[in-house]
């Protein structure tokens, strides 16, 4: 990937040589770069190699001898491979298996009878070759003697190798390969709907003079505050077989594509809405005046002025939504029913069948569309040119009663959809036994009596969110500062920027699985953080790094590079400038990064679902586990606790921001 940095105008002329300050800055950049390599690059690499780790029955490694009817007079040793060549008992494709593969030895002895006096001898000659007597593991090249009754119970175990067989067997399993199609289909449908709705909303908010714009802006971002599982749970109560509006589905089941699409639209809407809103806010009134003076129709103006102006926003929103849907795990797990999706397949392979290799294969496949979408988006972004020139006149919509009413009605409709889902969860969390006993109770909040981790999980989540917000904003902001404000060292900065952009394209599930492979290796010096809060913080910061990095970068770009020059000419060390000027000026952005990380750490499921331990259970994972065990009402209750916590965090953030900004941003 080439980088945005290359296209930046060349800055000041070269200085003579790097100052001490620059060396310190580079040092910092290397440290944070190393962090990204350890927390992202290396685990992904280990996971890729895991997907190539194969299991195959090595028939040449097993030798047999057979006695006559007296139990003596052993035949000449013969390998299983020779026997198979003669008998064709096992087809070559069936020799490829997974880590739990077992092959009964009697397959190589067509005239085997289990009550005969014939004895058998067996040894494993190859390194790593082993077999099971019943369930007892046997290794080694010493001959072992078995009577026929025991021989019947012997199965061979596969040896480990390296190759592409896992991918072959993935694509030859229709159920698995179908998930690719399903995932892409669901992501595409959801993207079209979400972007259309988000565009209409953003259009209403920027081009009409309808009332309550501020309120709608708030309501439309509410879904960001809840885990993606929650819309799934709400949909079960609304449209499930005992749902309030079950009849609206005309006999269709909510479990499956319908539920996935509705839920996906719910949880991706704020992301698309905010991006498109930004794109539409930047409008030049002169274009509209020109259109009006040319007597162009409203539709033509819309087509030739509004849409082209927002096209990069639209494309960006589309890719964000597509990536979010295809990588999301919580929603299809709850509401997907039998509809196979890639992210759920990873979970099924790893947790259901303990088939780590196949889990890694699905992860690699899940990386492809996400990376592709990311790459196309970056290409498009580079072509974006400044719309708003210095001479632009901000667009101010004129009142139009009918149009304003229409916009207002549409926004109300969407707001009702969003708030309705949340309200449904709150109601479900308070009902004793839906639908047979509708009395209200707080029993569902007694989390300690359920699977999932109890109230401890809730406080763990808050701890994780606080730590992530604190360390995340520190690391991200410092990293972005080094990229933006360090002089020279262009290659290093480019590599760093590339690393910082990568997490966006890595699905959380994939990151989590990669962390198991990487950190749970006793040879890894960082092994000790496995199962601790530290690994959860590292994982969460890394998972949400990109958006935070971009926020910091945008804020830093607004600062004139003259500050650095002035500080240098006054012989001020960079850290003084950093703490006295840069940080205070960028404080709004830093606070935004912190709240972004906090909210996401509260709601994330996909990355941490493989990484939590008994002491570090999380509320979002508890929602998943309680729903999984069928305790849907407590799951909804815990989901609502996450929601309220995030609302409180948002309010506190707003208060702090207001207080601090009054002090530090007076210059604005």
């Amino acid at each position: 990937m080439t980088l945005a940095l290359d296209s930046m105008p060349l800055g000041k002329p070269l200085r003579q040589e790097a100052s001490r300050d620059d060396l310190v800055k580079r040092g910092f950049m290397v440290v944070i770069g190393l962090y990204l390599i350890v927390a992202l690059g290396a685990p992904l690499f280990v996971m890729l190699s895991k997907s190539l780790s194969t299991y195959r029955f090595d028939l040449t490694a097993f030798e047999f001898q057979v006695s006559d009817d007296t139990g003596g007079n052993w035949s000449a040793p013969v390998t299983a491979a020779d026997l198979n060549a003669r008998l064709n008992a096992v087809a070559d494709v069936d020799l490829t298996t997974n880590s739990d593969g077992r092959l009964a030895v009697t397959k190589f002895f067509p005239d085997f009878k289990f009550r005969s006096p014939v004895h058998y001898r067996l040894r494993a000659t190859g390194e790593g070759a082993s077999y099971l007597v019943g369930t007892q593991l046997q290794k080694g090249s010493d001959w072992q003697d078995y009577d026929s009754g025991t021989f019947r119970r012997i199965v061979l175990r596969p040896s480990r190798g390296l190759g592409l067989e896992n991918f072959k067997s993935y694509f030859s399993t229709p159920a698995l390969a179908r998930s690719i199609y399903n995932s892409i289909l669901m992501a595409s449908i959801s993207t079209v709907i979400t972007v259309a709705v988000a565009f209409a909303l953003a259009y209403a908010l920027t081009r009409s003079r309808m009332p309550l714009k501020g309120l709608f802006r708030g309501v439309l971002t509410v879904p960001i505050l809840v885990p993606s599982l929650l819309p799934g749970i709400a949909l079960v109560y609304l449209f499930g077989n005992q749902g309030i509006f079950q009849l609206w589905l005309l006999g269709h089941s909510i479990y499956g594509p319908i539920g996935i699409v509705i839920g996906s639209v719910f949880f991706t809407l704020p992301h698309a809405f905010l991006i498109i809103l930004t794109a539409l806010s930047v409008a030049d009134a002169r274009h509209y005046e020109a259109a009006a003076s040319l007597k162009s129709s409203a539709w033509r103006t819309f087509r030739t002025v509004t849409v082209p102006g927002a096209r990069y926003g639209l494309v960006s929103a589309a890719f964000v939504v597509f990536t979010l849907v295809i990588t999301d795990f919580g929603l299809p797990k709850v509401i997907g029913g039998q509809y196979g999706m890639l992210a759920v397949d990873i979970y099924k392979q790893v947790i259901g069948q303990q088939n780590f290799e196949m889990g890694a294969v699905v992860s690699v496949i899940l990386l492809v569309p996400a990376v592709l979408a990311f790459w196309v988006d970056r290409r498009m972004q580079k072509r974006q040119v400044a719309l708003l020139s210095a001479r632009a006149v901000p667009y101010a919509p004129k009142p139009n009663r009918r149009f304003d009413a229409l916009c207002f009605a549409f926004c109300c409709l969407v707001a009702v959809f969003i708030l309705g889902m949340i309200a449904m969860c709150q109601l479900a969390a308070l009902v004793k036994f839906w639908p047979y006993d509708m009395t209200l109770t707080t029993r569902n909040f007694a989390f300690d009596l359920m699977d999932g981790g109890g109230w401890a999980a809730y406080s763990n989540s808050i701890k994780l969110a606080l730590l992530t917000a604190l360390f995340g904003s520190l690391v991200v902001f410092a990293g972005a500062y080094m990229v933006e404000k360090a002089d020279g060292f262009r290659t290093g900065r480019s590599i760093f920027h590339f690393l910082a952009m990568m997490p966006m394209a890595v699905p959380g599930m994939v990151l989590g699985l990669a962390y198991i492979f990487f950190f749970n290796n006793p040879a890894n010096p960082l092994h000790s953080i496995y199962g601790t809060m530290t690994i959860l913080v590292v994982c969460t910061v890394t998972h949400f790094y990109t958006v935070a990095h971009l926020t910091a970068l945008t804020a830093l770009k607004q600062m004139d590079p003259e500050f650095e020059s002035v500080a240098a000419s006054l012989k001020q060390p960079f850290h003084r400038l950093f703490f006295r000027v840069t940080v205070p000026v960028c404080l709004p952005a830093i606070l935004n990064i912190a709240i972004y990380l906090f909210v996401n750490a509260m709601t994330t499921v996909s990355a941490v679902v493989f990484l939590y331990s008994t002491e570090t259970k999380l509320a979002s994972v508890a929602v998943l586990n309680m729903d999984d065990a069928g305790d849907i009402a407590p799951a909804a209750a815990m989901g609502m606790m996450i929601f309220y916590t995030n609302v409180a965090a948002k309010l506190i953030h707003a208060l702090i921001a207001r207080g601090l900004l009054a002090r530090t941003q007076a210059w604005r």
Partner: protein
Amino acid sequence: MNRRMLCILAGATAALSSTSALAQTQLTVYTAIEAVDLDRYKATFEKAHPDITINWVRDSTGVMTAKLLAEKDNPQADVVWGLAATSLLLLKSEGMLEPYQPKGVEALDKKFVDSDTPPSWVGMDAYVAALCYNTVEGQKLGLTAPTSWADLTKPEYKGHIVMPNPNSSGTGFLDVSGWMQMFGEQKAWDYMDKLHENIAAYTHSGSKPCKMAGAGETVIGVSFEFPGAKAKTAGAPIDILFPSEGSGWEAEATAIIAGSANMDAAKTLVDWSVTKEANEMYNAGYAVVAYPGVAKAVEHLPTDLPSKMIKNDFEWAANNRNAILKEWQKRYDAKSEPKT
């Protein structure tokens, strides 16, 4: 620092560490037992053996098994107490379990003990396949309650049955392996082909079908008896049915992880886990326990539950699991598109 100081320091550290080792052994115990039972089991054991402290690591069966296998080269657990025997057999086939003959194991029902001597795992209690039938929804739809596995293939139940997916749930696998052992392999596949036509959804968890039946999301949930009894106590309008052909079952069991640094304490725990006292403790939730004659009736469950359990060949199930799951996935996952 002079040499005398060093000596004193070294002596002090040694004394400190040895006294704490004498006083308390910390056992890391992995488990999948119900969250509500954790404190009770720990308290009861520690009362009998105050010198040992249990540190629980608990999760669902699938996660726990995956975790143990992932840690194969560097095990973190001393003992596994309360995990499906099928999962323990997976660990055994990887050579991860320490064979040990617990004192008093002879008193246990044979089917609850690993067939090898010394055994690698010993059972605690059983969970038994059962049907949860929602009487209210059944009546609304004019259905009659099924009495056998064969009944489930009747056309009237089409779209009203939920069962766990054997590829993601241990309970799902115990159903499938139970049918194979009762009906024979070929007949079991024929049966499942027909059953598949009636299934509304395959879930990822074994207790969920029963809870779904309890909430009226489905009429019949193929599950096991424990969540059934729990849902009924909570007020769900369900009947817990045991099919006439018999029920597959799974043992919850105990094992020592090979290479444990606390082998003596681990053996003490496993010795205690087979005692009558321990089995009485298991009986609070489970109607069938490994120690004969201990079990008292559990609310909402029949007293003759043991007679409904089939003769379960754990070894056969473990050695055929991979092939069965593969075939199951080929047959039913591929066409398990949403039913509209």
